[in-house]
């Protein structure tokens, strides 16, 4: 009697696990499928329109060149990271290594970080426009854009660095302090290097936000496009994402095609930057991981 039941039960369990397995596979395939569809859609429509003029030529209504936007995009990534990463990582170090548990300042900082992370980017844009463009007199410029974007990515960097630093086992800290190292020495020579892969994954997220940002930048660095690239921080110049947005909303006969070309380049930029950062993370984390 009992055995029969067990067998029936087993058949039922096998059926359930089969259904679940199929469901999991389906979800997986769908995710990959959507990604591939988007990539193909943009690349197929975009790549054929990419030419040397578009990539490296001067901008006019004929070429719609993205050259100056490409340069500004990289400039913005680099300088914003140089500003925000040290501040964010030091803030995370304070929160995890120095602040005492239950400290009021920590609660305030955490609340601020979480709130900042949730604010829509267009609000940052408005803020940046008032503070950097108007009050501080930077006008619509790459500098105003960089300042705004740096504030925007700060919460991403703080929270991922905090997580990464927290996950460094205490036994490493004990080992270091037990050898007579100072707190500071332990943080910079043991804790931060061990947390580096996690910190870098926050940096990758931050890069994604910078590259994809439009709303906040339209208000601060402007939609202007220069004929040829400049590194002048006080110039008003668009990034790739804004270039794409502007092309898509312009009425020129080939501007839609060129918007897709810009999209393709954007994907390529994100891919390259992520690859570089992952390589770096791999190199930094290698000793910790190979067994």
């Amino acid at each position, binding site marked *: 009697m009992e055995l029969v039941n067990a067998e029936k039960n087993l058949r039922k369990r096998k059926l359930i696990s089969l259904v679940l397995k199929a469901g999991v596979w389906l979800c997986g395939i769908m995710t990959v499928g959507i990604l591939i569809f988007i990539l193909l859609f943009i690349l197929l429509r975009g790549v054929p329109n990419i030419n040397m003029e578009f990539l490296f030529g001067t901008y006019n209504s004929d070429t719609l060149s993205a050259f100056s936007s490409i340069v500004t995009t990289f400039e913005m990534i680099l300088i914003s990271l140089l500003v925000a990463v040290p501040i964010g990582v030091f803030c995370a170090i304070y929160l995890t290594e120095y602040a005492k548990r239950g400290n009021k300042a920590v609660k305030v900082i955490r609340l601020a970080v979480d709130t900042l992370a949730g604010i829509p980017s267009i609000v940052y844009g408005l803020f940046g426009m008032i503070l950097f463009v108007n009050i501080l007199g930077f006008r619509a410029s790459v500098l105003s854009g960089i300042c705004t974007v740096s504030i925007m990515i700060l919460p991403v960097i703080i929270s991922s660095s905090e997580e990464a630093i927290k996950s460094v086992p205490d036994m490493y800290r004990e080992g*270091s302090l037990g*050898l*007579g190292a*100072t707190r500071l020495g332990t943080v910079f*020579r043991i804790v931060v290097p061990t947390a580096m892969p996690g910190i870098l994954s926050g940096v990758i997220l931050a890069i994604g936000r910078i590259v994809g940002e439009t709303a906040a930048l339209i208000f601060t660095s402007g939609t202007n496009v220069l004929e040829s690239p400049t590194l002048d921080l006080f110039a008003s110049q668009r990034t790739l994402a804004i270039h794409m947005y502007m092309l898509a909303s312009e009425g020129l006969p080939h501007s839609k095609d060129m918007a897709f070309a810009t999209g393709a380049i954007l994907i390529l930029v994100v891919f390259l930057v992520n690859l570089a950062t992952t390589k770096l993370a791999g190199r930094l984390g290698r*000793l*910790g991981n*190979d067994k």
Partner: protein
Amino acid sequence: MINNDKIKIENVNLYYGEFHALKNINMNVKEKEITAFIGPSGCGKSTLLKSLNRMNDLIEGVKINGKMLLDGIDIYKDMDPTMLRKRVGMVFQKPNPFPMSIYENVAYGPKTHGVKSKSKLDEIVEQSLRSAAMWDEVKDRLKKSALGLSGGQQQRLCIARAFSVNPEVILLDEPTSALDPISTMKIEDLLVDIKKNYTIIIVTHNMQQATRISDKTGFFLHGEVVEFDETEKLFSMPKNKKTEDYITGRFG
């Protein structure tokens, strides 16, 4: 041969918040001997060990009073904790090599204390690994990650790392509890071998280990030292009934 007192513990009381973890401890630890602390879990033996190089400072809410003297100097009043920890090294229960190469693990301590010359570091690394009897095992893979070593090798690396800053006292907190018998034996042999140069204090759950390697043994119970005597005496004719009950396995 009569050795000098290296560490003197006088009327030490320690509290974790409200909890009275160490009660009026008095003990003298002789130079170049192995002293073992035994007792059931939570009896305070690890707490006392950790307070000898002020690792308890890292825990919030710890209060300590009484005196602990290293060569006559009060380690809580007249000594900087980093200097104390350089002189009193520690090996932890779980092997905790840093996620770096074997070489970097051993070179970390001397670098921290300002040794910069590559040749000097090479010398210290080799010496420390030789003292920990693992130079021949690892000399060809110094640049490889320390996390690739076996548990026993990792623990010996941690001992080598402790040697690297040239300490006078080495504290070991159940250093073999996570290891297999062969690795344990290697570490015990090592400790007996190095006691001519270092004062060693070891916390252990393993009473056979205490009898095998230690000169003196202290039996702890509920935060008190019940009995502290030469290992042979303590295990063959304990003076206290509780000690006898513990070492004959009636509780613990």
